[in-house]
């Protein structure tokens, strides 16, 4: 075992010197005066990159080279705006002006973001980002005009997080669009966006967004540090970032809140949290997160407060069921039959009489089958999706009971557990309860209720020692903050949730000024007050 570990460690070291894979060799290449030299160098760099377009032009009698990535640039803008403007202004520009040609062009162009690149690296980067590089003969700096038009889908409702009432917008794969979706909701200059680039080869844009003054500076700094610390070849999805910035990587519980909904991100930013948007992934990361955040659905805040308060208790109950029901059944059925009411015991005994497996084996069998079924349902192409539900109904259902392979109570237990699991609003949190269910079933099958108690205590200890960016995971229940319970035990009406969460929003605690409770005579009273 130890030897294998060592070998594995060694082999993993191969990937370490990642700098070797760098785009351009170390000493930064400076642009040459001569266009031909530059062109040669560029063509060498982009060798075998058939999507790179080199377009030669003759601007003001000077040899000019346009370099861009085919398909990443808005061709219309390029034709009509850029080239047309340049041609139109040809007469205005003078070759023998005091300003360089590049500078003159910069002043004339009206489209896109214009930058100048002085080194070869910058040029290459600019082109790969979707810019159009204008290389002029006899100039040391290159103009890069941002005309990128990247392929993207439209803003749709996120399929994994449906709501009955609430905005239907969801993040897409482009970080710029996602930021706009947030900016739309937070029209304040205090909404800050800090950009980072992560991934040596993917050069993925990562944006850290927060509200200045509400978010805690030290946490923002910690997020910055954790992101800049990442060294990786590529970031394909936001989970690549998530796993690098977690506090306790081996915990089964998610320490980052992921969502595809801009409204959830905006609401969390208002509570002093920080969101991380990653280009190429619609899932935004929100930190810090608490256990209770993960149990709440966005809809809790979009319905009148009585409904979500009731639903919340249902959800809490079902989360416990989802975690403990199969193990409780196993423990009671195989260790403590005296705890079942007599008549129920007789029914269970009658149903279990024909089943060939002990309760533990039966539970594991059914749970694993169900997990397989669920995984199959996710992976299957949509066209054959209905096949799973038909076959699944047979496997976990009447047929299995009639065949005498499993007992009916176990089918019911597994079904209730599955339903309970679906009530958990956050998928990643639902997954951790699914994961913990199996060790609990094993404990229940070997040690009975004592084992469940043991497992429960271990989970509680772990949850209470867990932290997400310095915030205790169980806050506000442990450590207790009475005010924070307003949003845990029940969802207080919006006019009553006067303060922001204690640990994330203490910079600017006041959220809703008091005295806004509505009532029939409210306007009269305010009139009176004003009169006085």
């Amino acid at each position, binding site marked *: 075992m130890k030897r294998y570990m060592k070998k594995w460690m060694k082999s993993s070291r191969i990937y370490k010197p990642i700098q070797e894979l760098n785009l351009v060799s170390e000493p930064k290449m400076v642009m040459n005066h001569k266009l031909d030299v530059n062109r040669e160098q560029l063509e060498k760099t982009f060798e075998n990159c058939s999507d790179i377009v080199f377009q030669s032009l003759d601007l003001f009698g000077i040899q000019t080279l346009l370099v861009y990535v085919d398909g990443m640039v808005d061709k219309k803008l390029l034709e009509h705006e850029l080239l047309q403007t340049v041609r139109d202004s040809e007469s205005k520009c003078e070759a023998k002006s005091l300003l360089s040609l590049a500078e003159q062009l910069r002043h004339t162009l009206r489209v896109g973001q214009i930058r100048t690149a002085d080194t070869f690296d910058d040029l290459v980067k600019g082109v790969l980002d979707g810019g159009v590089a204008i290389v002029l003969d006899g100039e040391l700096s290159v103009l890069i005009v941002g005309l990128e038009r990247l392929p993207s889908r439209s803003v749709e409702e996120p399929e994994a997080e449906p709501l009955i009432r609430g905005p239907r917008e969801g993040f897409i794969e482009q970080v710029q669009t996602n930021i706009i979706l947030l900016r739309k909701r937070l029209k304040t200059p205090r909404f800050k966006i800090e950009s980072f680039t992560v991934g040596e080869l993917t050069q993925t844009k990562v944006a850290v967004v927060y509200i200045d003054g509400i978010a805690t500076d030290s946490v923002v700094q910690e997020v910055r540090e954790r992101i800049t610390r990442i060294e990786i070849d590529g970031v394909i999805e936001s989970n690549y970032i998530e796993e690098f910035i977690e506090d306790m990587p081996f915990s089964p519980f998610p320490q980052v809140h992921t969502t595809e909904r801009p409204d959830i991100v905006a609401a969390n930013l208002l509570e002093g949290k920080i969101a991380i948007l990653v280009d190429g992934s619609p899932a935004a990361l929100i930190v810090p997160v608490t256990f209770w955040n993960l149990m709440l659905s966005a809809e809790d805040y979009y319905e009148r407060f009585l409904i979500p308060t009731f639903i919340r208790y249902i959800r809490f109950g079902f989360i416990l069921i989802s975690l403990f029901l199969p193990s409780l059944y196993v423990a009671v*059925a*195989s*260790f403590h*039959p*005296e705890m079942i009411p*007599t*008549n129920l*015991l*007789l*029914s*269970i*005994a*009658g*149903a*279990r*009489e*024909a*089943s060939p497996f*002990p*309760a533990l084996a039966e539970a594991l069998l059914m749970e694993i089958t169900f997990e397989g079924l669920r995984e199959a349902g996710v992976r299957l192409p949509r066209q054959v999706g209905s096949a799973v539900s038909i076959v699944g109904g047979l496997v976990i259902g009447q047929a299995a009971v009639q065949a005498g392979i499993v007992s009916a109570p176990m089918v019911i237990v597994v079904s209730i557990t599955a339903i309970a699991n679906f009530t958990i609003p956050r998928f990643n949190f639902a997954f951790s309860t699914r994961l913990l269910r199996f060790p609990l079933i*094993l*404990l229940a*099958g*070997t*040690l*009975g209720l004592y*084992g469940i108690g*043991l497992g429960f205590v*271990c989970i509680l200890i772990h949850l209470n020692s867990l932290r997400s960016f310095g915030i205790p995971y169980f806050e506000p229940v442990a450590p207790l903050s009475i005010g924070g319970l307003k949003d845990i035990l029940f969802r207080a009406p919006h006019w009553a949730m006067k303060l922001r969460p204690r640990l994330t929003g203490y910079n600017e605690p006041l959220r809703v000024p008091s005295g806004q409770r509505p009532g029939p005579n409210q306007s009269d009273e305010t009139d009176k007050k004003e009169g006085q």
Partner: protein
Amino acid sequence: MRGGMIVALLIVLAMVCAGCKDRAEINDIAMVMASSIDLKDDGRYVGMIQVAVPARQIGNVSQGRNNYFIETGTGKNAQEVMEQLQGKLSRRLFISHRRVLLIGEKLARKGIKEIMDHFSRNPKTRLRTYVLVVKEQKGSEALKVDYPLEFFPTEAVREMEVLLGRTAVTLRDLLNTASGEGIEPVMGAIELVPGQQIGSEKSKNKLTFKLNHSAIFKNLKLVGYLNNYDSQLMLWVTGKLKRGVMTLQLPEHKGNVGVTLHSTSREIVPEVKGGKVSFTVHLKGTGTLDENNTHLDFSNPNYYYLVEDTLMRVVRKDTQKMIASVQKKYAADIFGFGDQLHKKNNKEWQKLKLKWDKKFAKAVVTVDVDFVLKRAGMSGPPVHLREQEIVK
């Protein structure tokens, strides 16, 4: 990380070392629903158990076959009886769900002191098991009775105890009263009477249960019975009456009325004067009139007072008579008078407790009753009578 490893190791060790030791899969237990103990002529005990057959439970009941079966064992003590029984069973005896324990009259007369220990020492025993004496019969006879209304015949006994609120004594009550000072245990007693079970095939010689009497124990030996009416009064005096029925004769109005008693309570005031003990028992209760076989119109409150007065008089007289007979015949303090004295006047109790049986037998008991009739049903006069027949 290291701490985590140690914890994980401990859990795994615990699972490996201690796991599965007490496992009793539901398919591997014989669920005892009821049991009985009797005394054989040679002084050994005979135990009989009624075991549920899981395969014939709800949903899989096959017609014409019982969903339970009966097995017996004999031995010098309870453990030996259990061992013999276990020898005849393919599954582990599981007594945690036993609901009824029946004691044969013969054993009860001889005394159950020698066999009681097993029921309190065994951790699997359910303390809520109802304990009953089978009057003038063996306990095993009661287990053989077929009762079609419930899944198990003995379930009927339990349901009767719960429903009627008669002398319902659980193992816990029995242990409490048996070990308590100044109180003697009573138990419910069932009689096996010929039943009229038309529904079943062999309806000849069919016996059924009748929960009727209370068995009086002294020193854990059966000394006598109280009949149904006296049991009711006894329960009122001990404060355990939940529901009672009284039929009152009203001779001056040529008929009787039926009254149901609810929410009864009692207070016992002990008094010791010069070594002589006297008790005053205040009985309180409310009730409703459920039957009126006189011509009285109960929209007139005066007739309420009449019924109340009659009931109080009758109860006072009968209770005093009942207590006197218990004092005289059995000298067993089943009412817990001694216990009350202990609670209210410990000084005197300490002097009296050693010869309490004698003192109890000689104690002067006075009873007074405070009864309120709350309602008289849906109509004032009997509806079927003509106007002129009604006494207003």
